[in-house]
């Protein structure tokens, strides 16, 4: 069982559509990060959410951390082809003292022009 379950696994939409992807867990986290990874590149940090219920906006991207700090969502408004990529959620320090990130398996988004 994955610690972080991301859904959907794949999403193909037309330019201009809205979408939401999810990151769920049965565990409580002190914080959660979202990354975007383009083909042939490493993941790039988009946002860190820390407080339960927190909402952060990054241009057309809206990130929310669940009230219970067990889940998070990423909403994209009016998707553009440049939004294409693998969206990963990640948490740190799952085990005591561990500083490494644990990632979900990602949502692969393709935005068709």
């Amino acid at each position, binding site marked *: 069982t994955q610690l972080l379950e991301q859904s959907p696994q794949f999403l193909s939409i037309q330019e201009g559509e809205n979408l939401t992807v999810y990151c769920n867990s049965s565990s409580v986290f002190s914080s959660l990060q979202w990354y975007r990874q383009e083909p*042939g*590149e*490493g*993941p*790039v*940090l988009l946002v*860190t959410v820390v407080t339960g219920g927190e909402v952060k906006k990054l241009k057309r991207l809206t990130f929310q951390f669940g009230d219970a700090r067990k889940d998070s969502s990423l909403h994209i408004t009016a998707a553009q082809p440049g939004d294409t990529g693998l969206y*990963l959620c*990640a948490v*740190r320090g799952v085990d005591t003292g*561990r*500083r*490494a*990130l*644990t*990632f*979900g*398996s*990602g949502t*692969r988004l393709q935005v068709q022009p």
Partner: protein
Amino acid sequence: GAGVSQSPRYKVAKRGQDVALRCDPISGHVSLFWYQQALGQGPEFLTYFQNEAQLDKSGLPSDRFFAERPEGSVSTLKIQRTQQEDSAVYLCASSLETESNYGYTFGSGTRLTVV
């Protein structure tokens, strides 16, 4: 440098061959991580250094995998007697990593194909 640099970008190895993958972290970044990313999956943790000390190697899949960071900057991940299941992208990340802020910067990775 401005970012995390990894070399080579691509490596094809014959099964049984030894390989060495290099990571140049951002100057001054204390923490360095190695991850393995299989096709269609998220990255999975391999090992972690704080300066030259390897503090966590719990993710290394077998004793064929070895990592070092002798002077606390450049790191090398070595895989001995490569197997087909070692085929993956190997990502390096570095971080300043204070307790309150943990921004990780990833390199572009090395794609290893074992044939």
